[in-house]
């Protein structure tokens, strides 16, 4: 028994146990303390509950690359936020073995008023790096991002592509055991996207666990060895991309077909 437990510890990167995320929202959006107090006196503060995740249980092995698919609002991004410690589950437990780099929205951690260099320091510090440590990485980052002379201009003068490249360069330079990617590979030109994908593949070869959320099914087929299909906060299917993705595609076209039929009649 003991041996099996240790064996498990060596192989598991993420273990989610009955994770539920429940948003409690006040009805009629009571956002002021005054209203809340008045309603409280009247005993009229009622809450709406919204379950973003419903008792999700999931084990991800070390070095695995999994993709998450599903409609908007199915809970894909919420799941990543739980793994990244951004959302503490309402119920259940998340066991995460190793350090996590979330790449959730490229450039969201930047300040548009600061220069590229200042943003590199700021962003690095968010992951616990000193200025000195970021200076040592600087050449490598600039080379990957290809922003050249813009390094000392304010970020608001950058194009979206440049911002994405810089953010991607910084976050993927960190040696992490687990990398979470949310739709970020949808930005930038083809050339840059290829660069990102090949970097992800190298990561995975070196034993990093990847969890990717994307609507780009062919990308997931290429990058992932396992796909999770989510629907209404639950896991609907879990398996090989070759098994899951065709059924998913079929359901999507079927849904579209049904909708057009309904519209027609």
């Amino acid at each position: 028994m003991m041996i099996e437990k240790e064996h498990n510890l060596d192989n598991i990167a993420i273990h989610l146990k009955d994770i539920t995320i429940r948003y409690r929202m006040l009805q009629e959006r009571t956002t002021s303390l005054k209203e809340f107090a008045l309603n409280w006196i009247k005993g009229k503060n009622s809450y709406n509950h919204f379950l973003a995740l419903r008792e999700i249980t999931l084990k991800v092995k070390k070095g695995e690359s999994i993709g998450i698919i599903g409609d908007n609002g199915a809970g894909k991004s919420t799941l990543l936020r739980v793994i990244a410690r951004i959302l503490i589950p309402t119920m259940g437990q998340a066991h995460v073995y190793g350090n996590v780099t979330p790449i959730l929205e490229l450039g969201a951690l930047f300040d548009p008023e600061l220069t590229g260099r200042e943003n590199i320091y700021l962003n690095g510090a968010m992951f616990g790096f000193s200025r000195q440590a970021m200076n040592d990485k600087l050449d490598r980052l600039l080379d990957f991002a290809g922003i050249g002379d813009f390094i000392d201009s304010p970020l608001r003068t950058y194009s979206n592509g440049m911002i994405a490249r810089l953010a991607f360069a910084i976050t993927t330079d960190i040696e992490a055991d687990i990398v979470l990617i949310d739709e970020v590979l949808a930005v930038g030109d083809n050339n840059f996207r290829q660069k990102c994908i090949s970097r992800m593949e190298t990561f995975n070869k070196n034993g990093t666990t990847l969890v990717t959320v994307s609507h780009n099914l062919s990308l997931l087929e290429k990058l992932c060895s396992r796909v999770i299909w989510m629907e209404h906060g639950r896991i609907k299917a879990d398996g090989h991309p070759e098994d899951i993705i065709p059924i998913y595609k079929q359901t999507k076209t079927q849904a579209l077909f049904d909708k057009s039929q309904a519209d027609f009649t």
Partner: protein
Amino acid sequence: MKTVVYAPSKVQRTFIDEIGSLIKYRFLIGELILRNIKTRYKRSLLGVAWTMVNPLLTMLVMTVVFSQLFAFDIPRYPVYILSGLLLWNFFSETTVSATRNLLWSSKLLKRIYIPKSLFATAAVGTGLVNLLIALVPLGFIILITGTRIGFAIFFLPISLLIISLFSFGVGLAISAQAVFFADVVDMYQIILVAWMYLTPIFYPLNILPDKFQWVIHINPMYYILECFRSPLYMNKIPEPQIILGAIISAITALVVGGFLFTRKADDFAYYL
């Protein structure tokens, strides 16, 4: 290999844990302070000079108004009023920006894990830098009014530590509430105005009739202000009971603020 468990019960962290994670994120605190200062001065003509000129102008107006209209019998009134103003500005600016910084960083907190008390810490750090800059014109006023400065000045770092801890605690308490209700900041600012007039910043303590003296004596800012003003204005280390009152105020604010904040910190991401 680092193993972390995130679960509602396991993550009920204490305030001590929160402070511990601040040390891990010390570089980020530094970067945030730098950013606050840079963005404050970047697009203004006078830049750093504003931090010095602004309290001087207020001092000038107040000196004229109060010494002419109310005829307070305070020697070297400009030093009295400027030292009071600087300390009050520090307190009000830090607590309000601790709250604002937390609310504005919602974009960040939805995308990465950061200890949330970091924003109050950075606000206090920014306030300290601004206060140190504003001490320059105060030194100038002290010189031209012929105020004596002696060894009591070495008490000043202790005063600054006390006001920093007090502001940190109050900032945490207010910002923890402001995440859930948008009007908390507005209400707090109204309270601040009343609180300012209940603190002997512009007027001497003895203008209040005896039966209202207790109002001053339950005001924590009275003790803290005395700790700051005494060495600068009177060249005197404050009375022991004043120091004690200030220390108790700071510790109470820290404990209460820390408790209110850590109790709710894990819920912020659900609401921001």
